[in-house]
């Protein structure tokens, strides 16, 4: 959860100051702020559970690419505004039902972080859905751009909703966790929004992505090189 927020938030931050409309520059920065804020909570908790004295910054800045566990969707490049919107929408449509489940976990720490995140992510999904519809059903040009951007990001979405061994293990410990339900919710949101947006679900199959197992795309190395360089270059410094 923390890595998803951190890496997607980092990507969104690249837009800051370069958005197509000042109001939307602000809106996207808000989502970036929320996601990185959420990442800080998840990473702090992860470090605490691990008990090796790693805090949010140790986890963010001193892990290598193969130790990151986010969906590869999150690290895909921003492309144009429409690519960013669709990447965000496909993520939000998964993020929200997942958080809703976690907010019902017995573990009070997990549940309380998720409850806080749900409020923010509900807004993210509304925002990205509205933009997907607006651009999908805007002009001919915007429609075409969206359909093409969708072809770029779509293959990465499968990783979000297909179960892996970890999901099955987690479901055993946490009966509230059910990836099939997330999958269902995701499809229903996607179908509904694409319908309004006049977008067609691409025919292409999911690409076999294993970001959650630490196998990422070539993009991640560059994101980390940029993000981590200062603390790595001056490991003794306090900032």
């Amino acid at each position: 959860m923390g890595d998803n927020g951190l890496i997607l938030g980092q990507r969104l931050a690249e837009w800051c100051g370069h958005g197509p409309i000042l109001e939307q520059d602000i809106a996207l920065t808000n989502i970036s702020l929320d996601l990185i804020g959420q990442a800080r909570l998840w990473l702090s908790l992860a470090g605490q559970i691990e008990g090796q004295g790693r805090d949010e910054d140790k986890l963010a800045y001193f892990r290598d690419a193969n130790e990151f566990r986010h969906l590869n969707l999150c690290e895909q490049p921003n492309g144009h505004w429409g690519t960013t919107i669709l990447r965000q929408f496909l993520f939000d449509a998964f993020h929200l039902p997942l958080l809703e489940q976690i907010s019902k976990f017995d573990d009070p720490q997990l549940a309380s972080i998720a409850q806080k995140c749900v409020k923010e992510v509900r807004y993210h999904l509304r925002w990205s859905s509205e933009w997907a519809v607006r651009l999908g059903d805007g002009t001919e040009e915007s429609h075409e751009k969206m359909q093409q951007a969708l072809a770029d990001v779509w293959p990465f979405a499968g990783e979000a909703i297909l179960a892996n061994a970890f999901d099955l293990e987690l479901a055993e410990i946490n009966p509230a966790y059910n990836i099939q339900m997330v999958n269902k919710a995701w499809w229903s949101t996607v179908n509904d929004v694409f319908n309004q947006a006049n977008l067609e679900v691409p025919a292409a199959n999911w690409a076999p992505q294993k970001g959650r197992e630490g196998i990422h795309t070539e993009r991640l190395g560059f994101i980390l090189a940029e993000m981590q360089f200062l603390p790595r270059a001056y490991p003794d410094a306090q900032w």
Partner: protein
Amino acid sequence: MEQADLQRLFDSKIEQEIRIEPKDWMPEAYRKTNLRQISQHAHSEVVGMLPEANWITRAPSLRRKVALLAKVQDEAGHGLYLYSAAETLGTSRDEMMDDLNSGKAKYSSIFNYPTLNWADIGAIGWLVDGAAITNQVALCRTSYGPYARAMVRICKEESFHQRQGYEIMMSMAFGTPQQKQMAQDALNRWWWPALMMFGPNDSESTHSQQSLDWKIKRVSNDDLRQEFVDKSIPQVEYLGLTLPDPDLKWNEERGHYDFGSIDWEEFYRVVSGNGPCNKERLQARNKAHNEGAWVREAAMAFAEKRQTNVA
């Protein structure tokens, strides 16, 4: 009312410190001067996002990253308030943006300097936002109502930015030797451009006297600059850093610091478009604008469609 009566009414409002509001009659030159100043100010907020945004993806801790994102976002918000204030004078934001993108409109020259190390983010918050506040606190009493109200709102956030910037400087200046060096390097590069932010000396400033008479400007460039220098020096001393000015010394008689003379040749070079980053900044704004064109068009087309569907 006759022109002469309108003029008298306007003059008496200025005299009595009654704010001029958008619907009030005002001399054309007053309107133009305000429009120029407010739109320049708005452009400065927006272009000012760029040098700082340059470090968001490289911020050295998550706390700093979030704070910097929020700060740059605030600047976008300031741009919005100011464009709205300027629009009350009869020019649309689109037109103002076009003037910015074509290079016709000016923005604060300070943003044509590059951010080269992380301490620059501290130095900008501390000195650039600090100089801006010195200016803007005075502008909270400016005679044009919408501008004065925008300034009150903005000043609150700017002082938060300044504290945040100074806090970065403290962690750098009191940090490792390399961090201290970065802090000194940033101070060396930002000090003089920050002093230039107050504009030409009073003796050289073309618009100053009329602006003072109209109470658009409330304090002269040189007085504001002096205030800023006096206030900054103890802060520099606390950090244990040195200012790049051998002529700096306390003047007992004046009760102020004396400081060296500004390189006005550099100032005018940057103002006229030949600073270190003028081209880059304008290119970045134009790129954002041009690449966003299809998005804005689609949003308009969509809004129209929905409207006709509802109707």
